[in-house]
């Protein structure tokens, strides 16, 4: 996969310096009782300031693991390979101490479930202040002022009152705002939002995504959006990577997906799974038929072939390579679908 082509497109006038974040051939393996789980294999992408990349896939596609690998947050049992470079500095293989320098000021993360991701026994304000003081030598009162500023920045209502409350006293949306405030505490260059809005209701989801985009503009951050929701990715990202069974199966600028539709049948299925507004609220979400793959025993050939409506015999024997077939648009499929005529959404 030619990484440079993806990266260079939106920022052509940039000198050929190192990208802000450059992920090359990232692999993550876990050993579980003698079996090897290849959670992520060969994921590559790059990000520049102010850019948004969305990584889209079902549960178990390896998107969260790949995001945690970028911040060195996987448990010690994980074997991480490939390369993650921040402004040219290699992060894979750093010690915990080395990682800590980057977590916060360089890379920050917002997690899926704000109810579990905040410490239930610690006041909200203290959790923000802790993030502030970890990387800045501030006095207690200065850190408190900064934390209040951050909470106001994420538009938490009645900040001073909330500061002394515990997470369970806040609504889901407010908790996620607190999580974002924590992530912003040290002015990160890259913000990773790992299913940041999945646990929230639709209205709150739109508010939080709007907030993230505003903050991205204001603070010139790069954003990595991890989601299973193609519509969300389409609305907020510049670039989409579709992952299946730990691999990138298709990538393209966001607009390309919605002009021509995905070429890989899995992408197409995800696009078709987008809920439309006429559906009643809380009705069952249409999903890609079939079960997500078992990462410990992947089929030979294309890992999507067991669920693929267009699979042919060669799909079950040959593993398709991810090749850039069109400008900035690559897919890994032996029998890609023809582009659709109009916009997909």
């Amino acid at each position: 996969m030619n990484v440079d082509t993806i990266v260079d497109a939106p920022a052509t006038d940039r000198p050929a310096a190192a990208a802000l974040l450059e992920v090359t051939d990232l692999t993550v393996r876990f050993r579980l009782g003698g079996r090897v789980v290849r959670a992520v294999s060969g994921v590559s992408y790059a990000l520049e300031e102010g850019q948004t990349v969305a990584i889209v896939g079902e549960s178990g596609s390896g998107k969260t693991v790949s995001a945690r690998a970028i911040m060195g947050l996987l448990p010690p049992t994980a074997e991480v390979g490939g390369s993650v470079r921040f402004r040219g500095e290699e992060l894979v293989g750093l010690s915990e101490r080395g990682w800590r320098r980057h977590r916060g000021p360089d890379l920050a993360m917002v997690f899926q479930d704000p109810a579990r991701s905040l410490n239930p026994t610690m006041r909200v304000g203290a959790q923000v202040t802790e993030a502030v003081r970890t990387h800045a030598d501030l006095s207690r009162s200065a850190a408190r002022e900064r934390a209040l500023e951050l909470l106001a920045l994420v538009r938490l209502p009645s900040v001073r009152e909330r500061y002394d409350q515990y997470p369970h006293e806040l609504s889901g949306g407010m908790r996620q705002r607190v999580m974002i405030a924590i992530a912003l505490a040290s002015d990160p260059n890259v913000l990773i939002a790992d299913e940041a809005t999945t646990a929230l209701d639709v209205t709150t989801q739109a508010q939080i995504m709007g907030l993230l985009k505003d903050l991205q503009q204001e603070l010139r951050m790069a954003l990595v959006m991890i989601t299973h929701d193609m519509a969300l990715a389409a609305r907020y990202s510049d670039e989409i990577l579709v992952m299946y069974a730990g691999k990138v199966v298709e990538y393209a600028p966001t607009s390309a997906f919605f002009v021509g539709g995905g070429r890989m049948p899995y992408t197409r299925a995800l696009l078709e799974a987008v809920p439309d507004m006429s559906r009643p609220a809380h009705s069952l979400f249409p999903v890609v038929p079939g079960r997500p793959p078992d990462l410990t025993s992947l089929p030979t050939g294309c890992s999507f072939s067991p669920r693929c409506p267009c699979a042919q015999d060669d799909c079950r024997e040959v593993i398709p390579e991810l090749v850039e077939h069109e400008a900035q648009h690559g897919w890994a499929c032996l029998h890609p679908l023809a582009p659709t005529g109009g916009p997909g959404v």
Partner: protein
Amino acid sequence: MADQIAIVQAPPAASRGVGRSWSSRLRALELWIPGVVLVAIILACVVWPWLGTLPDPVNGHLDQPYRPLGTAGHVLGTDTLGNDNLSKLVYGGRLSLEVGFGAVAIGMVLGSLLGMIGAYKGGWVDSIVSRVLDMFLAFPALVLAMIIANYLGPSALNVTLAISLYSLPAFARLARTSTQRLREQPFIVAAKLAGTRDWRIIVRHVVPNIVPELLTFALLSVSTAIIIEASLSYLGLGVPPPAPTWGGMISMGQQNIYSFKALLLLPCGALFLTVLALNLLGDALRSRWSSV
């Protein structure tokens, strides 16, 4: 994604694969070492007095007190009254084991019966049983045993009964929770629907299912019961002298702590070893049961 993270955060997998034989061997040792030690202690205490090779633990020669360790005829020396220390240890141990196992057996049978009936019947029977048990649990075990032993009068049987009363509520509670869990199981419901009598369901279905758990807990309780027996004897409220007891020996040892340390260390060591073996064995069994 969440399910995948859950897989990832399962405990390190080192226990399988290469490490498997090692850790399973280690686990076997955890079971066998205390098991063998315990069997050795039991055999020594139960069989040795029968062989008739030991000197009398009482009525020793008053003219041969304070013999040091290694004296001919008295391998572990003699006490202040000229009694053989080894013989006292063995007879005292036999008493400790009898009382310990006896008390726990009584407590286990009566306690689990109460607990099973309470949980099986439910309703007011259960409420009364558990309230009364709560009250008994409020008494410090040793204090309860002291008073009851004193009330019944000092003898091995009465000490056993007193200690059994301490272990009874704990067994009842354990049996109660296990039975409650079982009561909703399909095979019990099926047996009830088939018109099987209550006592028959209890005997045929409930008892076999809770016995492993009860026995493991019993092993750990025996160690507590032995400690309480020794404590009572130490305080002079247990089986009365001249019967040799570990607690009594420890008390005598304390009085001679400046002059003859072996008198204190021998019974302390015997008590510690026995309790440690029981605890380690119980612990190993428990982890084996819970991992199955």
